[in-house]
């Protein structure tokens, strides 16, 4: 014991003597001896005493100094002792773990699972809910949406926005924004940038100052007040200018116009809208009031609530409706806080449910390790009684046991945090497209603190179980008496059994959930979208209006580009559409059938539409069912044609051949002739049934921004270079975006179900492992407790097989009880899963049976080891053991 060495011997004596008495005695002894010496030398006692004192110096002061020094010495000693004892305890604990590698491995694994899973999920909650938004006073920020009869997420028109801003009484200010992608030319390949047109008030409302330079001035937000300035995001500034401040004042060529860089925003600001650059937006009161294109944000006045702002805005909207009934009929305004808008009540609830579930998981881990420790405490009661007999105090033994469990939990935490570090990138990837703010998921100090705090708490919690058992066990003579007697430590056996049954039930619940969600994900990945995604390359082009103002020029560009791409070796066919499948967009239009009386309200016909080139159907692999597809002949001056999907044919013309029929759409005097029927496709969500869809001729409905769809003979990625080259041979400054295999878009459509499945799988695997450990723990404990009984039975001639089957029955019985409970609860709760399931009934029998089989056989396996150990007990030893 090196650190304590110098104190070890004096400790026992010195410990209890107060410093004051120690010093008094020492000094008094000195004075007395000196006095005696003087008396022996012939002085009279009084003079001798005086001389001794004089010679000594200021007794009171020296006494005080010594007491002070002595007290400090004692404090240091106590501290040194405490640390040394802690060191001893920790070393002893580690030795204990090394001596029982099986126990240590199982316990550490259990804790690693519990702590790892909970830390990971806490990380998700941290990223989604806890990390502050990168804005000033985010609690006062709201989004304003238009509300119509059919949607409550509608945009605002420019005049409406200006009126909202002018007439409200609850907002400090409002700002508007509009998505506005631009192409950047100069310096490498042309690039398409996500850009946002914003009013000057936009930045002020968000309460964010630029990192460098300035944001837009008020006059830059007035119509005609000046375009030509741009604010950069931090990420774009780094990427394009290497973070150089000389970027300010430089010029960028965006979509054919030049812009002066006036400011750079701080990092993280773009995370919400994902824009690279911000351009001035100038809403005009003269714009069409029915043309809705603006997103609106607002900052509430201090003290104003979202509810008050909502009622204020409803009044404003009602007044506008009265004033402009034509455009604003049935049009109102909704106010949503940023927290609700960005995260959403549903996601928040899901994360909180996850946190609760993970808390339960952690409790399961605690219960299991507590059981393991209890099982071992039985085996260790002799060792502990020996230590008690050798003079270890009650507090010292408790401390030792708690230290052991905390050491255990810290080792578990180390593995658990490693687990979280490994799991986090997987979850971030999986959730990237479907969970808000998940891109901020990292193991930061909050997550680490959580993991360590959770493990310490766990350690103390499960460490208390054996300590509690020691303290409350039956038998007289206090703790020491009980320990010396070697009495078996009896705990609340029933409580432990209940814990195990509950943890099995929970594992069953999670397994059923994982089975159902996993099953529907598998179904989903096997859904036939109605087209062949394999072997198709996509690319997205946006023709800048500056250089392609007329539709003829746009049409000419795409026709020539597709002709050249189709001629590339290895390309089978090439087509274009305004919206590629699963690219996240949709366009719809109401229509009427020619020769049919208009139907009543609410039954208005509506269909999604796509503008496509003739090659599109072949390139995508959509089969023709009847008639023909769009042809070269369907040009601008030819009769308008439409190709419809089977669902549309069935809905609009049930039992009738639709080819030759015609429809009318608003604001077009000429009818549209149905010329063909093609197969249904799913292009919004894999789990949604195909909707009524119609295809229009690109030459008749020309669109400046299109997706190219290129079917290749080989791997689609191999054609990417050639496609880019052909486009740039036509227009070297045109950005080519979203160059990727179509299959990637399709699999991204399954991202959210995959994320849900991953989370469920994570939980279920952890819960299953914990349940198995739990069953093992309790069966092993039972065997330890019943050593005498088992030994007796063996001595009386019981067959080992009988012992094995009895022990197995114990574990399997508990598991079966848990399974029945869990299946019951799962059955009752499964309907809540219905919304996220696809193609699998929430009560899918195969899943339930499978889970029951899995859990019971796992429990049987877990019981096998202790059962065989029991059957091999030496009866003589077992009977003598106590």
């Amino acid at each position, binding site marked *: 014991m090196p650190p304590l060495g*110098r104190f070890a011997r*004096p400790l026992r004596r*010195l410990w209890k003597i107060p410093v004051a008495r120690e010093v008094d*005695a020492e000094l008094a*002894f000195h004075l007395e001896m*000196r006095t005696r010496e003087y008396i022996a030398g012939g002085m009279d006692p009084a003079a001798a005493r005086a001389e001794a004192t004089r010679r000594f*110096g200021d007794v009171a002061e*020296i006494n005080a*100094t010594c007491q002070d020094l002595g007290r400090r010495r004692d404090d240091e000693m106590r501290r040194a002792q405490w640390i040394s004892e802690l060191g001893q305890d920790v070393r002893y604990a580690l030795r204990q773990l090394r001596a029982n590698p099986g126990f240590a491995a199982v316990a550490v694994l259990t804790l690693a699972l519990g702590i790892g899973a909970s830390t990971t999920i806490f990380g998700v909650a941290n990223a989604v809910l806890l990390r502050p938004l990168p804005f000033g006073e985010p609690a006062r920020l709201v989004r304003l949406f238009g509300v119509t009869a059919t949607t409550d997420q509608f945009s605002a028109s420019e005049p409406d926005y200006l009126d909202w801003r002018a007439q409200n009484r609850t907002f400090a200010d409002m700002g508007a924004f509009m998505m506005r992608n631009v192409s950047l030319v100069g310096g490498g390949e042309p690039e398409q940038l996500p850009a946002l047109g914003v009013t000057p008030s936009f930045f002020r409302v968000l309460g964010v100052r630029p990192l460098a330079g300035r944001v837009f001035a008020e006059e830059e937000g007035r119509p005609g007040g000046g375009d030509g300035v741009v604010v950069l995001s931090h990420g774009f500034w780094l990427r394009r200018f290497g973070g150089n401040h000389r970027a300010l004042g430089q010029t960028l060529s965006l979509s054919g116009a030049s812009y002066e860089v006036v400011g750079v925003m701080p990092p993280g600001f773009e995370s919400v809208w994902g824009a690279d650059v911000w351009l001035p937006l100038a809403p005009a009161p003269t714009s069409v009031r029915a043309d809705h294109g603006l997103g609106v944000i607002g900052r509430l006045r201090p003290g104003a609530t979202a509810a008050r702002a909502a009622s204020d805005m409803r009044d404003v909207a009602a007044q506008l409706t009265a004033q402009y009934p034509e455009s604003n009929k049935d049009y109102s305004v909704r106010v949503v806080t940023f927290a609700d808008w960005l995260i959403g009540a549903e996601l928040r609830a899901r994360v909180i449910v996850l946190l609760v579930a993970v808390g339960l998981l952690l409790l399961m881990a605690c219960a299991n390790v507590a059981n393991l420790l209890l099982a071992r405490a039985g085996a260790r009661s002799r060792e502990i009684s020996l230590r008690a007999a050798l003079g270890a105090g009650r507090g010292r033994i408790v401390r030792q046991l708690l230290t052991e469990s905390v050491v255990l939990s810290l080792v578990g935490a180390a593995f658990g945090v490693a687990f979280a570090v490994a799991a986090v990138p997987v979850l971030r990837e999986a959730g990237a497209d479907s969970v808000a703010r998940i891109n901020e998921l990292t193991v930061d100090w909050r997550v680490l603190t959580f993991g360590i705090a959770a493990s310490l708490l766990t350690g103390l919690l499960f460490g208390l179980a054996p300590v509690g058992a020691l303290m409350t066990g039956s038998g007289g003579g206090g703790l020491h008496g009980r320990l010396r007697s070697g009495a078996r430590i009896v705990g609340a056996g029933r409580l432990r059994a209940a814990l195990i049954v509950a943890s099995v039930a929970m594992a069953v619940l999670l397994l059923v959930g994982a089975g159902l969600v996993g099953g529907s994900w598998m179904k989903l990945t096997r859904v036939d979208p109605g087209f062949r995604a394999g072997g198709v390359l996509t690319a997205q082009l946006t023709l800048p209006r500056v250089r392609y103002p007329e539709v003829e020029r746009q049409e000419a560009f795409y026709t020539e580009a597709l002709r050249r791409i189709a001629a590339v070796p290895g390309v089978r066919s090439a087509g274009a559409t305004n919206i590629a499948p699963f690219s996240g967009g949709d366009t719809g239009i109401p229509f009427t059938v020619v020769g049919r009386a208009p139907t009543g309200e609410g039954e208005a016909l509506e269909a999604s539409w796509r503008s496509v080139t003739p090659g599109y159907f072949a390139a995508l692999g959509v089969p023709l069912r009847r008639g023909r597809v769009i042809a070269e002949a369907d040009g601008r001056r030819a009769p308008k044609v439409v190709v419809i999907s089977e669902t549309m044919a069935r809905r609009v013309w049930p039992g009738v051949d639709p080819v030759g029929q015609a429809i009318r759409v608003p604001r077009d005097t000429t009818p549209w002739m149905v010329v063909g029927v093609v197969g249904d496709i799913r292009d919004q969500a894999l789990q949604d049934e195909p909707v009524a869809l119609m295809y229009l001729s690109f030459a008749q409905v020309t669109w400046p921004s299109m997706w190219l769809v290129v079917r290749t003979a080989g791997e689609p990625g191999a054609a990417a270079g050639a496609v880019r080259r052909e486009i740039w041979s036509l227009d070297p400054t045109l950005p080519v975006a979203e160059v990727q295999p179509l299959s990637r878009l399709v699999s991204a459509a399954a991202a959210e179900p995959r994320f849900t499945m991953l989370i469920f799988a994570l939980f279920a695997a952890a819960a299953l492992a914990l349940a198995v450990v739990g069953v093992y723990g309790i069966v092993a404990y039972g065997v330890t407790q019943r050593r005498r009984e088992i030994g007796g039975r063996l001595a009386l001639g019981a067959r080992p097989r009988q012992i094995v089957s009895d022990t197995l029955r114990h574990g399997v019985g508990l598991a079966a009880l848990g399974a029945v409970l869990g299946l019951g609860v799962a059955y009752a709760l499964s309907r809540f899963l219905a919304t996220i399931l696809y193609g699998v009934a929430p009560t899918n029998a195969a899943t339930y049976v499978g889970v029951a089989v899995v859990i019971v056989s796992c429990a049987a396996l877990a019981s096998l080891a202790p059962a065989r150990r029991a059957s091999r007990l030496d009866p003589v030893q077992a009977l003598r053991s106590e």
Partner: protein
Amino acid sequence: MADSTELLHGTLDTLILRTLSWGPRHGYAVARWIQEISSDALQIGEGSLYPALYRLERKGWVETEWGLSETNREVKLYRLTAAGRARLKVELAQWREFSSAVAKVLYGT
């Protein structure tokens, strides 16, 4: 006495360590030894011995235990630790160096 105490302050620790190097003894015995080996020439304020002892104990150079005095009284005994012994060696070496340097200055070579 005050003057010599000042002068001796740094050397007092060395003297104590030296004294204890011959075996454990109580505070009074330490005082007597210093008095004797210095033939009373090094007169110290005797009381200042005790704070010095407590300081040395905190530094870990001496340790204490309770034992019996010559007069059969329970007294606190001081004993040199291994660390104290090492310290003493260092200080003796320093002293030798210092006194030879002083000698050189005073007598020349």
